[in-house]
């Protein structure tokens, strides 16, 4: 029998494939689907760092910003196209990931959270003030869409969504592969007990930095994808508050599960839209919903789904 997780993943993939058809003509909703896909890549990266290696980070939005600005700079100033700039975004965020991960090795818990907050705020200030590269608060406009493949243009959100979806699948696949290997198990050992892990011969320094690099690379890739979809970027999209939203997405989805990361990101991107009839008080309800979900769904959405499908399987509740 096929494992249940794969069935869910397959169903979700087919639904995702159909989204541009379902929402055809509604640019607003299609854009939202692109954003949900991009955010699920960011949150998967955070899942590797926090869910597996147990290292807290509130700087994912800064890495997203570094990826977005790298790609925007190289396409608008240097004349590269999307596919050439994308690897540079990943590389840049990965390098910064080493730069942040290394000094943070000695920290954990709240201290690490704070150091990453500090890094995030400094990054945002640099984006605002380094006008030669970032154009300051005005942001960078006119970021080109990816070059067309044959007759397929990626100017519209509908077609662009498939590029994003492709990367979501690729990132999920890579994360799942890593999780099943020695590297993934080493990270989980560090999360459970760092001292015991190092006594077992795990090079904790190496794996913690690797976790930061992976989280940074995922966010950098996502940043590039985001920049070429909305074609305009400005520093306020990469704030501390946005990093907090990524953290909430991960925790509500289910912090150590790849599916949970995607589900949490997609749901919380769409939740404000569902609440939009409440007009300007919808964020209030969103905040209250976060509190309610953390109280009543201790293992996140994934935990809820597992509990539900277990009940379906064994009606006697064995």
């Amino acid at each position, binding site marked *: 029998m096929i494992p249940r997780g794969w069935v869910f993943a397959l169903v979700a993939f087919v639904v995702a494939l159909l989204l541009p058809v379902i929402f055809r003509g509604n640019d607003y909703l299609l854009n939202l689907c692109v954003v949900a896909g991009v955010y699920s890549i960011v949150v998967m990266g955070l899942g590797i760092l926090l869910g597996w290696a147990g290292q807290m980070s509130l700087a994912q939005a800064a890495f997203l910003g570094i990826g977005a600005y790298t790609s925007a700079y190289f396409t608008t100033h240097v004349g590269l196209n999307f596919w050439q700039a994308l690897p540079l975004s990943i590389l840049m965020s990965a390098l910064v990931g080493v730069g942040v991960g290394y*000094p943070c090795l*000695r*920290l*954990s*818990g*709240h*201290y690490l*959270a*704070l*150091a990453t*907050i*500090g*890094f995030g*705020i*400094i990054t945002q*200030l640099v984006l*605002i*003030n380094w006008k030669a590269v970032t154009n300051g608060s005005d942001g960078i406009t006119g970021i080109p869409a990816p070059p067309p493949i044959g007759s397929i243009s990626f100017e519209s959100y509908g077609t662009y969504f498939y590029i994003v979806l492709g990367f979501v699948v690729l990132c999920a696949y890579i994360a799942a592969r890593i999780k099943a290997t020695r590297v993934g198990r080493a990270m989980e050992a560090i999360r459970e007990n760092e001292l015991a892990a190092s006594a077992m011969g795990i090079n904790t320094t190496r794996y913690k930095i690797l976790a930061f690099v992976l989280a940074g690379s995922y966010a950098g890739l996502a940043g590039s994808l985001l920049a070429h979809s909305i074609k305009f970027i400005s520093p306020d999209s990469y704030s*501390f508050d946005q990093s*907090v939203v990524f*953290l*909430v997405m991960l*925790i*509500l989805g289910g912090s150590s599960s790849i599916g949970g990361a995607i589900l949490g990101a997609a749901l919380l991107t769409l939740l404000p839209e569902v609440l939009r009839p409440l007009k*300007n*008080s919808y*964020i*209030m309800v*969103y*905040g*209250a*919903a*976060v*509190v309610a979900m*953390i*109280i009543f769904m*201790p293992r996140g959405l994934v935990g809820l789904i597992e509990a539900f499908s277990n009940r379906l399987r064994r009606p006697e509740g064995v």
Partner: protein
Amino acid sequence: MHDPIVNLQLLINGLAIGSIYALVALGFVLIYNAVGVVNFAQGDFVMLPSYVAISFLVPTITVFGFAMHWQLPAIGVYLIVLVLMIGFALLFTRIAYAPLRDRGWMPVVISTIGVSIFLRNFAQVTWGSQPLSFPSPFAVDTLDFAGLHVRPQDLLIIAVTAVLIAFQYVLFEKTPLGKQMQATAQDRTTARLLGIRVGRIVSITFIYSVLLGTISGLLVSPIFSVTKEMGSLIALKAFAASIVGGFGNIPGAIVGGLAIGVIETFGGFYISSSYTDAIAFIILIGVLLLRPQGLFGERIAEKA
């Protein structure tokens, strides 16, 4: 760099804003010591009372779009706000902390983040998104001493902070309640075995922390305008201050707050005003790298 008057003025400004960081940092540390959690809604404990106070103080303020026409005397308003905030603190403890207390620190952090999102939007819905200006309790904006311009509000902030620090010292060192709070912070199980009602002490700690935020808010509002975001940067810097001083260490939080206030004020003037807000975090990262236990050491080792 050599004008003593300018430097003195910067020092007073820096100490005033540093006092605010110190009070908020104290609020962080007290809650952290009592329940082992960093409260991400601490900044909103500064914002909320400022809005409540301004609704009673300024007749033109609208609440949910209705004109209030209230203009009560300032002292009365401050007392009303303090009482309302005690109620808020009890509600906060009951909703955001109590149901999650046995599940480790992460869920509580998320729920305080949820409360923070809620409160900021609540403020926006209730009082609108325009920044509001808070009436100063003083008739003049600046006092002039032989070329030295001093805002009386700055002096008030420094004086009130000094009184609160003295109060904190007497409370913790000389009263049974303070001893019980310290015992709870050190070891909850043993404190409970000794007959201390830990649940009640935790509630009192939350109330005290909220009141510190309230007083900071009432003090700082006449200088900054009242916005839904006013508390967030103050809280982040106060958090940085408490780590610089050594997390969990009360004198450390106070000195850290004052130091960050003074350094960022001088840095903003002499180095770069656009990077003023980065200074606190650059100091923080430097301290974390060079002396991770903070300037004063810390009570709880969590970094190893």
